[in-house]
Structure formats: structure tokens, C-alpha cells
């Protein structure tokens, strides 16, 4: 297992991170225990960064804080994008800077066809290639509605296609593999590689080692803190061994 931050290869990335989450503390409502307890994380432009953690460790909360969802403002700490403070910006203001998010369970929309959904928020485009990238046949899906008649897996793929079509600077993908069968995991990997090819940075929240290992870097979150970062295979192994903040006596470290 490699140790130390300095051993992580950073191939030609810019010195200023694309995204910086600096010492963020977040509490939900009047809860005394923070969900995020001074969490810090940085993503470089074009980097695919996997975030591993068990249920309830704060992964989705971090995703919502980065996107700026309603009710998700840090109690303290800051979030920067390309060096600019974005903590107080609304979702659409962040989206217009190039940040977007695919929720773990995408919502359904009545009366919006897949064809139109893939063009929302951007200039009209041919949506077919984006559906192909997520393993869907355009002829079968373009005319369908993004409603409850789609299965969970289909809806998820369409959301990923829509995010690809947006061509963002940073895509926050909250468990993109959940609800997608094992045989189709390669489709999710293809999507992440497509983001990489486009130069889009990805914060990839996942439970699956086989997905996490395709990232450039990975971090493990536990109890609202990043407890280790490093090579994805090493972080995944650390995660699989149930090494957590409690086991390591609160020490954050690099693997």
C-alpha cells in the first residue's frame, strides 16, 4: 500500500483545483451531530474521483452541498469552483458555471419526451448518440416520456445521457450504478470514460469496487470526513476491509 500524498501521480493537471471543498461542516436542521464534520476534498479539472463510503456516511449530503440543493448550505467552511466561492449560489447558477448532478434516484416527469429532455438547458442537438452511449437504442426511447413507465434502470440511463449531453465541467454522479444490473455495469463505465474523454471532471459516488477502480483517484468518507485518499484500488481495498474512522482512531491518512 502506497503512503503519503506525494506518491499520487498528477498527470499534467492544473495547479488550481476545479472544485475545492474546504473544511465543510453541515448539520441537518437542529441535529447536534454534524453529517459532515470538517470535510475537505479537491478535484482537478478532468479528474474522475471516486467517493466510497458506507450508508449514512455523508456521500449524498456532500453531493447535494456541491450542487447547492435547497436546505444544503454549509454551517461553516466553503466550496470553491475554479477558485471562486460558490457556497451561496443557487443550483441553476452553479449549473451555468458547468456543475451538474445525477441523483441516485432520478425523478420522473409527465409529458416530457426523452428527445426533449436531452435538449433541456442547452442548444438543440441530436440526442441519439447520447442514448447510444448509455446502452439505449434511440429508436425505442426518443419518443417515450420520462415518466413512471420507464424502469428505474432506464430512467437512470436517460439521466446519464442527459448529463452527457450537457457537456459539463463537473458531473456529480450519485451512485450511477444503483438500479443497473451487473451485466450492464460496463455501460456505466463507458459513460464515465465518455466524461473523461470530454474533459469533464466526475465526482463518482459509488459502492462498487469495479466502478471505483476506473477512477483516477478515490477517497473514502466515514463519519462525515474523508479518511483516506489515493489510488482507487488501494482505497477500495481499504474500504472493503472495513477500515474506517473508528478503526483508525480518527486518523485521516492516504493509502
Amino acid at each position, binding site marked *: 500500500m502506497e503512503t503519503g500524498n506525494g506518491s499520487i501521480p498528477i498527470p499534467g493537471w492544473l495547479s488550481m483545483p476545479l472544485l475545492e471543498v474546504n473544511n465543510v461542516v453541515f448539520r441537518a436542521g437542529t441535529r447536534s451531530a454534524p453529517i459532515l464534520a470538517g470535510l475537505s476534498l479537491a478535484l482537478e479539472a478532468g479528474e474522475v474521483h471516486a467517493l466510497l463510503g458506507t450508508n449514512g456516511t455523508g456521500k449524498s449530503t456532500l453531493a447535494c452541498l456541491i*450542487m447547492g*440543493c*435547497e436546505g444544503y448550505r454549509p454551517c461553516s467552511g466553503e466550496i470553491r469552483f475554479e477558485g471562486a466561492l460558490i457556497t451561496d449560489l*443557487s*443550483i*441553476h447558477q452553479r*449549473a*451555468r458555471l458547468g456543475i*451538474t*448532478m445525477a*441523483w441516485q434516484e*432520478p*425523478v420522473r*416527469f*409527465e*409529458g*416530457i419526451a426523452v428527445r426533449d429532455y436531452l435538449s*433541456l*438547458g*442547452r442548444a438543440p442537438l441530436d440526442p441519439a448518440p447520447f442514448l447510444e452511449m448509455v446502452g439505449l437504442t434511440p429508436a425505442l426511447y426518443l419518443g417515450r416520456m420520462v415518466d413512471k413507465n420507464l424502469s428505474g434502470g432506464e430512467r437512470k440511463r436517460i439521466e446519464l445521457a*442527459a448529463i452527457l449531453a*450537457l457537456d459539463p465541467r463537473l458531473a456529480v454522479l450519485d451512485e450511477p450504478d444503483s438500479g443497473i444490473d451487473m451485466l450492464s455495469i460496463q455501460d456505466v463505465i463507458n459513460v464515465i470514460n465518455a466524461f473523461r474523454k470530454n474533459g469533464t471532471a466526475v465526482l463518482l459516488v459509488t459502492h462498487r469496487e469495479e466502478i471505483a477502480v476506473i477512477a483516477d483517484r478515490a477517497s473514502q468518507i466515514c463519519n462525515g470526513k474523508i479518511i483516506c485518499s489515493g489510488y482507487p484500488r488501494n482505497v477500495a481495498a481499504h474500504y472493503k476491509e472495513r477500515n474506517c474512522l473508528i478503526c483508525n482512531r480518527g486518523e485521516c491518512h492516504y493509502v
Partner: protein
Amino acid sequence: MSELDELMRALGEAGGNAGVLAAADTAHLAVSGHSIVSSHCVEGLDVDARETWKGISARVVVREGVKLKRPVHLCFGVLHKKGTQEIRMDIKLEQNASADFIAHCIFPNAEKIVHRMNAKVEIGEGAEMRYSEAHYHGLSGGIEVVPKLSVTIGKDGRYYTEFSLVTGRVGRLAIDYAVSAGEDAVAELVTRVFGHADDEVKITEKVVLAGERARGLIKARVAVEDDASAEIRGITEGNAAGSRGHVDCMEIVKDRAVAKAIPLVQVNNPGAKVTHEAAIGSVDKRQLETLMAHGLSPEEAVDVIVKGVLR
């Protein structure tokens, strides 16, 4: 310009297809005010339409086994600012007949207009009818629309209706539909309305599942903004074994608008099952956030969601 031309121009300006009455293989009946300004029949379809002192009265029959290839277009409008138009329709689809009806209701200049429709529909055994009614109103809101419909569906018959009033002001709308479905029959009633300013929307739709294995769906999609109000009553009775019914009501409320949903489900046979769902409120937060994450402003996102629901 003839009254028909004016009616068609108004339809075109409202976003409808003004060329619908030109095709020789397409039946139509066009009424402006109290006058029948054009009509055309095709083989297998009988239309007996007469002017009355307040509107028209028409008896329409699709003969046994006839399946009309093209929809029958019904064009009703009042181009003046004031007036009353009463339409009485008696529609019968004989055994195994099939027909689509598309009604265009055009009131672009209404300041004090009353449009009443009183229709009786009889669907014969194995017959199928689709009826869609789209309204094109002006912006003054000085209109009262009162459609009343009674439908009887015979064994294995199918009846689908869709009412849409999403262009212009609603004014005052009071829909009163009642459908009785026989053995293995299917009834589907869909309503889409967008109310603005002080518009009043009242929708009462009732499906009685009278025959064994009859199926019914009442689906209402209503959005109200400003000071508009909406009240939707979806009533389904399951009276026979194997019958299945569902009431699905969604209302989106903006500004100071008020919406009510009153679903009433009644089962009088242990083998029947009727369900209902109703959702009333502002736009769903997760839907809003998802669209904002695509770069849409909150206003643009609400617009996309409301238009989708009413589509």
C-alpha cells in the same frame, strides 16, 4: 370573408390546424354561433344537424361495422364578444363501429359568452370511440363553458375522451361527465386545464363500472395560478365482479390559487377494485432541482414541468 373562413382563421391563429376541413375524405361539422357554416359526411357516417334558436342540435350515427379512417372534425366557435352557443349532440356508434372525433372550440374574443354542450353518447357492442376536445380561448376570461356528457358503453366497447383547455383564459368551466361501462368495456377520461387570473375550474367526472370486468380511468391534470381556483371530483363505482377503476388527479398550484381534489370511490361488489391517487401542491421540489441542475432558472423549470403535466 365568410363566417367559416373567419372561424378557420381564428383556429389557425390559436395554434390549431386550419386546414382540417378541406380534405374530401374527412367528415366535419362547423358551427359559428347559431349557424351551421359547413358540413361534410363520409360513407358509413350519418349526420343530421339542425340550427336551433340558441345553437345547434345534431344526431350522429356511425353505422354497424364501419371503421372511419379519418377523424370527424367538429368545429364550434363564437367570434363575437357576447353570445350563447348551445350544442346538443346525440352520438351513436353501432355494433363494432369505430370513429375518432376531434372537437375544436374557438372563442378568441369572448367577453360575455356562454358555451353549453349537452351530449349523449351510445357505444354499441364492440365499438370504439375516441373524442378529444381542445378549447382555444382569448385573454379576457369572459366565457363560461359548461360541457355535460352522458355515455353508455356496451359490451366490449371502448370510449376514450380527452378535454384540453390550456390556451388562453379558462373563464368559468364546469365539466359534468358521467359514463356507464358494460361488460368488458373500457372508459378513459382525461382532462387538462390551466387556469389563470380569477378563472374557476370545476370538474365532475363519474365512471360507473356496471359490467363484469369493466375498466375505468379518470385522469385530471390541472394547473392554477394567480387567483384561480379548481375543484375536481373524480367518482368511480365498482358494481360488478372483476371491474377495475382508478382515479388519478394531479393539481399544480402557484401564487394565490386554490385547488381541491375530491375523489370518491365506491365498491358495491367484493370482486371489484377501485383505487385513487391525488397530488396537489406546488411543483415537486426534486423535479425543480433536477431541471435547475440542467441550467434552467426556477421560472423556466416550473414552466417546463407545468407544460409537461398539461401535455
